[in-house]
């Protein structure tokens, strides 16, 4: 390793030699950096899973534009919209079709288990608004009080859920009614719900209280091929009588929903702070290690200054140590975080993942944070006065 670093740096790797000289201190420092890495990795995985869980319901549908109420910050929040805006929107030449979308959280029982499911009421006669995975089940939704359930729902036996089909339906109890599910699709739990359920708009109105046909939660609009979604949205804002409506492209609605969850919802803010705290912990640990190291070697640094080395050479040694700590600490941190995330995923059914790009970004970020700590620690080098050596 010393030879490799000597070739890379073009000089003796003093930082490396200094770190490895005190094995105990090196191990403690690496444990600290790894710990900070674990914090950041886990918090990022949770934050990422929130984005995935938030964006997931958008995958169940296909739409060019979405009309929502002014206070609809997410797919499941906000007031209803009047269905009449759907008919006004259809007057735009680039809008080819429209469908109401009802959304509500419903508590159901199955085999003695209570589940909270985000339930979507859709028009089964317009399967084009459903994702390719859901489209084959649209016909089943025309049956009275029927539905298609998320087979990854928490509380469902995964094998039983996978077996659900027209010839092997399952029943759910909701508000004294029996709902029959004839199919399943792959969804996954979220932070507030156990899974998802798709029913027809008519069934939705039966199982969700105080909802009316003329007041869906959102309106989905299909656009002509090649239509500019932003331009059509702008046109509709001028055409539709209610000027307070949020008329956005479907992709924009999804992005704004994720941003809302991450930056304005307490959970998102807390996990975001978790990432910052992880970075700060890492900064403090590395700063502490490096500044102690500089203090311990202050006479050696002063000697280097006396024999003609410049300050930037000394800075290079400290930064070399910082980068070595960052790189060596990242490996164990990554492995421990992966194990923790796998355990959390199994326990919660949340889409917790630690992607390669995230891992690389964290390692690069750690290196930058360590370099910053190193730069702060080098302030102590000013105390290295070669005149004091005599």
């Amino acid at each position: 390793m010393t030879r490799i670093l000597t070739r890379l740096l073009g000089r003796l790797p003093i930082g490396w030699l200094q770190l490895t000289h005190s094995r105990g201190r090196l191990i403690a420092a690496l444990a600290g950096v790894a710990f900070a890495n674990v914090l950041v990795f886990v918090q990022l995985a949770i934050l990422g899973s929130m984005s995935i869980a938030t964006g997931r319901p958008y995958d169940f549908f296909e739409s060019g534009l979405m009309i929502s109420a002014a206070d609809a910050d997410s797919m499941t929040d906000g007031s209803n919209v009047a269905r009449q805006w759907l008919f006004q929107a259809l007057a735009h030449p680039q809008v080819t079709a429209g469908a109401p979308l009802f959304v509500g959280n419903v508590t159901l029982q199955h085999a003695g288990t209570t589940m909270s499911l985000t339930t979507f009421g859709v028009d089964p006669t317009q399967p084009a608004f459903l994702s390719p995975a859901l489209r084959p089940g649209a016909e089943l939704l025309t049956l009275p009080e029927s539905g298609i359930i998320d087979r990854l729902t928490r509380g469902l036996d995964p094998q039983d859920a996978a077996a659900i089909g027209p010839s092997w339906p399952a029943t759910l109890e909701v508000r004294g009614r029996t709902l029959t599910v004839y199919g399943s699709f792959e969804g996954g739990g979220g932070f507030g719900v156990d899974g998802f359920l798709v029913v027809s708009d008519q069934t939705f109105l039966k199982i969700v209280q105080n909802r009316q046909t003329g007041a869906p939660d959102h309106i989905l609009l299909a656009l002509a091929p090649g239509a500019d979604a932003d331009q059509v949205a702008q046109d509709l804002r001028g055409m539709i009588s209610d000027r307070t409506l949020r008329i956005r492209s479907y992709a924009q609605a999804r992005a704004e929903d994720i941003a809302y969850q991450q930056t304005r919802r307490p959970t998102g803010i807390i996990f975001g702070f978790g990432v910052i705290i992880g970075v700060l912990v890492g900064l403090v640990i590395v700063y502490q290690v490096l500044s102690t190291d500089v203090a311990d070697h202050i006479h050696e640094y002063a000697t280097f200054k006396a024999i003609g080395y410049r300050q930037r050479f000394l800075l290079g040694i400290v930064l070399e140590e910082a980068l070595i700590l960052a790189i060596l600490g990242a490996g164990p941190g990554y492995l421990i975080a992966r194990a923790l995330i796998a355990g959390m995923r199994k326990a919660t059914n949340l889409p917790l993942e630690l992607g390669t790009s995230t891992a690389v970004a964290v390692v690069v970020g750690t290196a930058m944070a360590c370099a910053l700590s190193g730069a702060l620690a080098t302030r102590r080098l000013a105390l290295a006065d070669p005149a004091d050596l005599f």
Partner: protein
Amino acid sequence: MGADEPAIAVAGLNHWFGRGEASKQALFDVNLVVARGSLTVLMGPSGSGKTTLLTLMGCLRDVQQGSVRLLGHELAAAPERQLVAMRRRLGFIFQAHNLHESLTARQNVLMGLHVKPRRLRAAGDGAAAHVLGLLGLADRMDYLPANLSGGQKQRVAIARALVGDPEVVFADEPTAALDRDSGLNVVELLKHLGRTRGMTTVMVTHDSRIIGLADRVVTLEDGRIDAAAVHG
């Protein structure tokens, strides 16, 4: 630097520590010329200003008043960059060896070489091994300082100072940790380098064995050179 120009010429040098009323003058109108290739010993009681003079001549402190010409360059008001460049032409031997604990003897010596011009750096490991060999450490080159005796550490520090072919060596009690023979060998080596390469040595010491080998002995008393006690 002209051939006749001395290695060091100090004129009217005054130096103070501290500021305002609390300041204390350490050197008073010091005048000294050190010939090229010579071995000059600075003597005097503790607090007489020997070390202060050594650090001023060695570019380790800023000259406050007076003149210090080192190898033909005036150090008074010289910018830090020039002082660093000058220090690269010098060698320092400290009483406390100040070796880097995580570097082997050879690596410590190489640190004295890597700061030198490219033509000297090229000698690399070979030069380090040669100097360590001259100082009787051929079998200790890959030892860490923790595994060396006090005398061996001091000899590594001497090797670090000499490896880069310095033009002037400043030494503070370089033989204090050495036994009689080793101490004499080191001084003989310094004198030999003075004769053969024109290396100048200025040394602070109380070692009477060395005083007899010096070309010149300068005694300081209360920050002043004792003219009556300058020999050589």
